[in-house]
């Protein structure tokens, strides 16, 4: 067992970036093991997907044509059967919302342990050493597990595989047990629409849970007005109903790349950072000098936002 099987992620007709990143992660592990890297793409326009996935370092791309959109029971049955066929040491799955919907059940079916949300992977063939965060990114850890495993990888941690490879493209026939399909997808809805598109803003004044109370948001709006900037936020502010969904930056909200992103009372959890890491200049105002946001900030003020924000507003009045 020296091979690696990595699963591609796609939605509504498009491959997601993590599909190319997982090829890089998978190649690294396959090199550690001295084996082949297999990708599989399941459901939808698989031939088109397979041609795109044929990048440097990929040995085989398997296609499974059953199904249109993601359905966890089809994914699990397909991967289970393919795993029985090629016997990979590691099955790599994107740590996406869909990845987290099937990987843990897949691990159960394969009777393998699972480690999720990894940001680094190494193996000597028997022991897998995975790097992952804990406590919302305050610390990094290494964990070890023995033998074959299912592993999910965090998006945007590995570079995308590039180039055009010479992978063999194999159509894999799966026997789907329809009786085991226990869920039906009825459609999709875009929910972050509305009058304001924070992705268009040059300057974002972004507020997080550090603001503590809804009424305190006033100082944030005052600052944004003074700077002629737009207000955005982390998730808890939207969860609390203090700002509409279209103001949320992050994995499940918007991806923004303003000239200046001012993160106020935001810790910098990975799902938030996924939406603002590409900002040109990142400023963090946070009482906690160890907050993960400091690891990606260009400028930082380790102080109370209730002191700094009004003082800053004053500078522009």
């Amino acid at each position, binding site marked *: 067992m020296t091979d690696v099987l990595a699963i591609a992620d796609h*939605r509504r007709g498009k491959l997601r970036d993590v599909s190319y990143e997982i090829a890089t992660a998978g190649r690294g592990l396959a090199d550690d093991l001295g084996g082949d890297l297999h990708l599989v793409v399941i459901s939808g326009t698989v031939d088109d997907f397979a041609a795109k996935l044929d990048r440097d370092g990929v040995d085989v791309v398997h296609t499974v044509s059953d199904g249109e959109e993601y359905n966890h029971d089809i994914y699990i049955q397909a991967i289970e059967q393919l795993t029985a066929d090629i016997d990979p040491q590691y099955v790599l799955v994107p*740590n996406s*919302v869909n990845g*987290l*919907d099937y*990987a*843990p059940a897949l*691990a*159960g079916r394969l009777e393998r*342990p*699972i*480690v*999720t949300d990894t940001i680094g992977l190494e193996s000597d063939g028997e022991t897998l050493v995975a790097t992952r*965060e*804990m*406590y*919302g*990114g*305050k*610390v*990094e*850890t290494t964990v070890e*597990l*023995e033998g074959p495993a299912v592993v999910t990888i965090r998006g945007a941690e590995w570079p995308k595989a590039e180039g055009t490879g010479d992978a063999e493209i194999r159509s894999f026939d799966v026997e789907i047990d329809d009786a085991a399909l*226990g*869920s*039906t*997808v*009825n*459609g*999709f*809805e*875009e*929910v*972050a629409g509305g009058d304001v598109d924070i992705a268009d803003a040059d300057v974002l004044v972004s507020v997080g849970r550090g603001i503590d109370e809804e009424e305190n948001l006033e100082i944030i709006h005052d600052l944004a007005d003074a*700077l*002629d*900037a737009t207000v955005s936020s982390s*998730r*808890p502010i939207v969860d*609390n109903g203090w700002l509409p969904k279209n103001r*949320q930056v992050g994995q*499940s*909200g*918007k991806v923004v790349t303003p000239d*200046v992103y001012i993160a106020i009372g935001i810790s910098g959890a990975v799902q938030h950072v996924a939406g603002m890491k590409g900002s040109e*200049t990142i400023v963090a105002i946070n009482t906690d*000098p*160890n*907050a993960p946001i400091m*690891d*990606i*900030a*260009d*400028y*930082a*003020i380790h*102080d109370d936002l209730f002191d700094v924000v009004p*003082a800053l507003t004053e*500078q522009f009045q």
Partner: protein
Amino acid sequence: MKILVTVSEVATVEDAFEIDGTTIADQYLGADLNEWDDYAVEEAVQLQEADLADEVVTVTIGPEDADQTIRQALAKGADRALRVWDDDLADVGLLDPGTKADLLAAVVDDEQPDLVLSGVQTGDDSFGATGVALADRVGYQWAAVVNHLEHEFADDTASVRRELEGGVEELTDVDLPAVLTIQTGINEPRYASLRGIRQAQRKPLEVQTLDDLGIEGVDSALALTEMYEPESETDVTVWEGGADDTAGDLASLLREKGVAQ
């Protein structure tokens, strides 16, 4: 309908902390009800208030100290609680999601709930895998990252919205019995009332050992071998001084960048 809610007590870390071997030194750690589970408890209690559920039971894997967190869930309206613990578990360092799912599966076998609500993830180890792993072990259907649940169960199905990336939601019907992993924002978790807190003291909280669950020994698949503070990816400039000074520094930067001109 009977609902089982998984409730975790998570470790919280103070701003300034020290690492001691492969853990954070005890004096910097606190404990809290897992944020995601708070929403799961609320959803279950709302289903009960809507007469769609007749019993809400919580289950927690954890030592006696976790009772304070379990009582919080009871104070918010759960009817009774189960806590799984055993000296054998205390010796296991980092419980992997598969092991947690094995323990919870034994409880599901005993309780036979129609619906299991679990948080999307725990705030400390953030595996985000236990709920779905549990569903597989007990042969239930499931949906991960649910941010809306229709309070109507026609034809033994649950209609949910799964929150995908990028502001897109998936509308899905899931056969019951099922495990749903609940996302923050699905509802507005209540604060426990004083009456609720008093009542919680009298609600049943039963402890189950591995023996009680018919499980022979546990062994985590994951060994935690290192813990360290991550390296900064940027060369961060930290402005020092009082708020007026630091605000002045930031104002200069913003002016330099042409903001508000």
